């Protein structure tokens, strides 16, 4: 079972993600801020992280850079209410980008795609 870390400052969104992704067969751990996310990362390993870009007074992009530096083997999907960050150079570090929607199909597809790619890489080294 893949272990996912969901970082979003909205409690209801964390709850929605947790419920929906659990239904998809993932183990989901949530965090409300960058610092909480770092704590969770120290507590255990994750197969993938889903990050919101706007985290109250913090930036999800900063957290992304930190994760890429420290946990370069863990893929990250950015999830944002804005589509404009898709063209932001700094957001290109992420493995996927999804615009928030009540229909989580796209997010679920993206998680499956990124995890499959990670598994393929682990298997073939490419």
């Amino acid at each position: 079972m893949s272990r996912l870390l969901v970082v979003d400052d909205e409690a209801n969104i964390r709850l929605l993600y947790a419920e929906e992704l659990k239904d998809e067969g993932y183990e989901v751990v949530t965090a409300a801020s960058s610092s909480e996310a770092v704590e969770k990362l120290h507590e255990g390993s994750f197969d993938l992280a889903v990050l919101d870009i706007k985290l109250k007074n913090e930036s999800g992009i900063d957290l992304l850079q930190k994760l890429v530096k420290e946990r370069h083997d863990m893929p990250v999907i950015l999830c944002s209410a804005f589509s404009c960050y898709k063209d932001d150079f700094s957001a290109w570090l992420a493995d996927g980008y999804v615009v928030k929607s009540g229909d989580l199909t796209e997010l679920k597809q993206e998680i499956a795609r990124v995890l499959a790619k990670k598994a393929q890489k682990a298997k073939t080294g490419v």
Partner: protein
Amino acid sequence: MDQECCWNRDVIEKDDCPKIGQGEEDLLALKRQRNLEKCCDCPRFMKDLKSMCDDNNPLAPVLIDFLAEYSRQKIQIQSLVSFLDNKTLEMRFFHELGSVLQSSVDLDEVLSVALTAITAGKGFGMNRALLLLADRETGMLSGYLGIGPKNIEEASQVWDEIVQNDMDLQTLAQNFRLNKLSSERAKFHDLLEQLTVPLSNKDHILIKALDGKLPIMVESAFQHPDVPPEMARLLGVDTFLLMPLITRNRRIGMIIADNCITHRSITEEDIHSLETFGFPVAFAIERASLYDKLQIELNRVTEAGKKLKEQQDLIVRMENMALVGRITSSIAHSVRNPLMIIGGFARSMLKNSPESDPKRSFIESIVDETDQLEGVLDEILNYSDSLYPTRDFWDVNQLVETALSDSADTLTSLGYATGYAPGHDLPPVYIDFKQLSYCLRTVLQNDINVISNDLSIVISSQSGEDCVILRIDDHSRQISQTELDRLLVPFSETRDLGTGLGLALCKTMLEKQGIPFVAQADVQDGIRYTITLPTRKEEQP
């Protein structure tokens, strides 16, 4: 002594004096005046005087001496009067010329006056005048304007006309400018063109005269060592005058004047008068040229001021738009999260509720409405993005292939077949790639409800004049032109046709970039979208 002459009679008859002519009858009774004006030239009086000498009258030889001196002084006075009359006329002419030249800042008008003055009988009466102007930018002395008849027939016609009309200098010049300037330009065009000389050619006689700042009278031009044979051949005269036009120490130009028709000799007095005339003409030409330049600069400054004002307006507008964009974006963000939560949980509940649940239709309504609102939110965010198009040169094929690739999953899942026929050697197009991609995706995936059996979309591109024409033929949509037109109007009520919001936004976005977007509907064949992409970088509309 018998007297042959009537000099000693108080009153005489007309036949008594051979010197009194028509209109001088009053002298018949004015003895003193008649003696002074007529007798001294009269052969009869001289005969009487000789008889007096023969009779040894001692006063006779003295009187003869007095008469000789009187005659000499009379001729001298007549000559001086004639000279003064000429000078008075010349002064009047210069005064008239000066008034006309000073009142004009139009180069053509000044030149018309100057050349008319040289050739008019009331002026210097030369047969032909050619004006050459010095251009410091090109470093050339170039033929600019000529005036004068080409042959004796034309000369007679022109001179008769002038005599009949009896015009003053200003009227003559105005007449020349309005009626003759273009034809004279055409007449002398070839000659003037060949009279162009580099200012650096110090050996050329024109440049020598210009640098020497003094007129040069050229005689025996065909044998003259300083006159190039081709110049003598071009002018076709043996004698001509070169009159440099100088202001302060600046070389303005040159007048070449001659009497190519009458072959009247050019006198020292002509040269002196023309030299005097040259100064005001040179100043007037310089002033008119400076005024022209000033006018050009003024137009530039006015244009720059206008552009600056436009830029200021644009900055203010952009600041306003940026503010609107930031507000829109902030609202959209605040709305999207709750919307996502409502829609997400509604979907979750729907997924877990049995088909028989009577409340299922309520949850379905919540899901539909949140979908609709999310669509509106996307439109708003896309619109706020569209306020700032970032244009550059892009490859059309890349644009189409990206849009097709982005839409592939959606279209394949709906059973669509797509194809692209690229044109040959397409030039890059000047567009906002992101906005154009959005528009193509929207056109490909638009949710117009009425679907036919033919689920095919064919894209083609071809080169046009300064553009690439992109056509998207969507055979799947069956809709009338009226309904399609409604979809192209923002915020019109089109829910019966599907949300269709994207098409109106596409049209707005493209029009903001100055890109024509045409959508033509045919109930049988579907919809053809034509997008004309510019290949040239032009100013933002």
